[in-house]
C-alpha cells in the first residue's frame, strides 16, 4: 500500500499531514519523558529519560522528520514553555552544561535517521531489524556525547580538560546504550505495528 505520506518523506518542504502529526507527537513525547524526574545528575547535567525518545525518533521517522521534531521541541522550550528536563525552559539551555548534548541531538538524529533509512531499505527480517536499529541508535548516542564533550571543553564557564570532560560524560554513556536497546525494541514494536513507516523498498 502506498500511502500519501510516504511520498515526500525526504524533502523538507513536502511534509504531509501525517508527517506533521508525527513530528508534533514525537516532540510531545520528548517533552513528556523530560518530565520524569531525573534519577541523578553529574554536575548540572541531568540524567535524561527523554534520550530514549531522542534515539527512538530517527529509528521510526528517519532523518528529516526526526530533525524537525527535535527542532520543534527545542523551539518550544527556548520560547519559554517548560518542556526541558525538570520543567526548565528558555534559551539558557544552550549555554548550560547540557548545551553541547542538546545541539548534538540535531546532528545525531540526522545521521542516525539517514543510516536507519539506508539499512532498512533492504527489508530485513524481524530479528535483523532490531540489530540494524540498535546500530543506528548507537551512532545517535555517540554523536550526542561527542558534542557534549566538545562543549565541556570549549564552554567559557567550564573549560574542562579532555579527561575531565570524558569523566563527566562517562556515567551517562553505558546507561545511554541501555536506552538504545530500549529504543530499538520500541522501534521494532512501532515499525511492525505500522509497516508503512518503513522506508520504501530498494528498487
Amino acid at each position, binding site marked *: 500500500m502506498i500511502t500519501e505520506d510516504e511520498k515526500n518523506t525526504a524533502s523538507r518542504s513536502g511534509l504531509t499531514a501525517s508527517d506533521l502529526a508525527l513530528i*508534533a507527537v514525537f516532540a510531545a513525547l520528548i517533552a513528556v519523558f523530560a518530565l520524569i524526574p531525573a534519577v541523578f545528575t553529574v554536575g548540572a547535567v541531568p540524567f535524561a529519560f527523554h534520550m530514549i525518545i531522542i534515539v527512538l525518533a530517527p529509528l521510526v521517522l528517519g532523518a528529516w522528520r526526526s530533525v524537525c521534531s527535535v527542532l520543534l521541541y527545542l523551539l518550544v522550550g527556548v520560547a519559554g514553555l517548560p518542556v526541558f528536563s525538570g520543567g526548565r*525552559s528558555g534559551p539558557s539551555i544552550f549555554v548550560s552544561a547540557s548545551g553541547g548534548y542538546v545541539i548534538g541531538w540535531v546532528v545525531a538524529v540526522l545521521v542516525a535517521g539517514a543510516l536507519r533509512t539506508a539499512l532498512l531499505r533492504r527489508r530485513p527480517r524481524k530479528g535483523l531489524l532490531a540489530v540494524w536499529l540498535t546500530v543506528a541508535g548507537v551512532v545517535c548516542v555517540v554523536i550526542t556525547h561527542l558534542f557534549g564533550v566538545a562543549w565541556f571543553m570549549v564552554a567559557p564557564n567550564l573549560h574542562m580538560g579532555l579527561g575531565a570532560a570524558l569523566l563527566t560524560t562517562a556515567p551517562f554513556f553505558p546507561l545511554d546504550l541501555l536506552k538504545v536497546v530500549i529504543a530499538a525494541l520500541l522501534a521494532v514494536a512501532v515499525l511492525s505495528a505500522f509497516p508503512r513507516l518503513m522506508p520504501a523498498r530498494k528498487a
Partner: protein
Amino acid sequence: MRLENYLGAYRAGDSLMHRAPVVVKYLLLVVLGVVPFFAGRWPVSAATLVLSALVLVVGARRSPRELDPMLGVLVMSALILVYDSFFLSWRNGVVFVCGTLSCLWLARVLTCTTPASVLMDAIASLARPFKPLGASPERFALTINIMWNSIPGLLLSVRQVRDAARARGIERAGWRFVAPVIVGAVGRALEMGEALQARGLADND
C-alpha cells in the same frame, strides 16, 4: 491536581490575563521567567517568583492550587538546589529554582487564558516573515498546536493503558506498558494525520 493538567488547559473567562494580548503574556513569560536566569541575582529571581505567582492567581484568577509544580519538577529542583549549595553556592540554586517555577506558572497562564485559535493566529503571524523561504505559517502553527495538545493526551494515555491492564486484573503495569503508550501514540498520530488530510487542514497555504 491531575498530571494531564501540568501545562494548564484553556478556560474561558474575563480576567485581566484573558483580556491581555498574547504578546503581553509572552513578554511576561520571557521577562519574569527567562531573563532572571541571565541576571543571576537571587533577590531579583525571588521577586519575579512572587510576581509570577500573583500573575497566575490574581491576573488570571486561577485557584492557588494550580501553583503546584508536581513531582517531577520538585524532585529536579531539589536535586539541583542541593548540588548547587554543595559545589557552587546556594544562590545559584535559588536563581535556578525560581526561574523554573516562574516559567511553569507563566506557561500555565498562557495556556489557561489564551484560546487555541488566538495562539495559532499569533504563531502564524510570527512565522509569516519566513514565508518567502518556503515556510508555511498555518501548517507551522497547526504543528505547534498539535504538539501542545498532545502532551495532556499522552499523559492521559498512560492512565488509560493502566486502566486497561487493571480491567483485566493486571495490577502492576510498570515498564512493560511503555511500549503500548508509544505504539498507541504513533498510531494516533497517523490517524490524526489522515484526519487532518481528509479535512484539508494540512495542505500548503
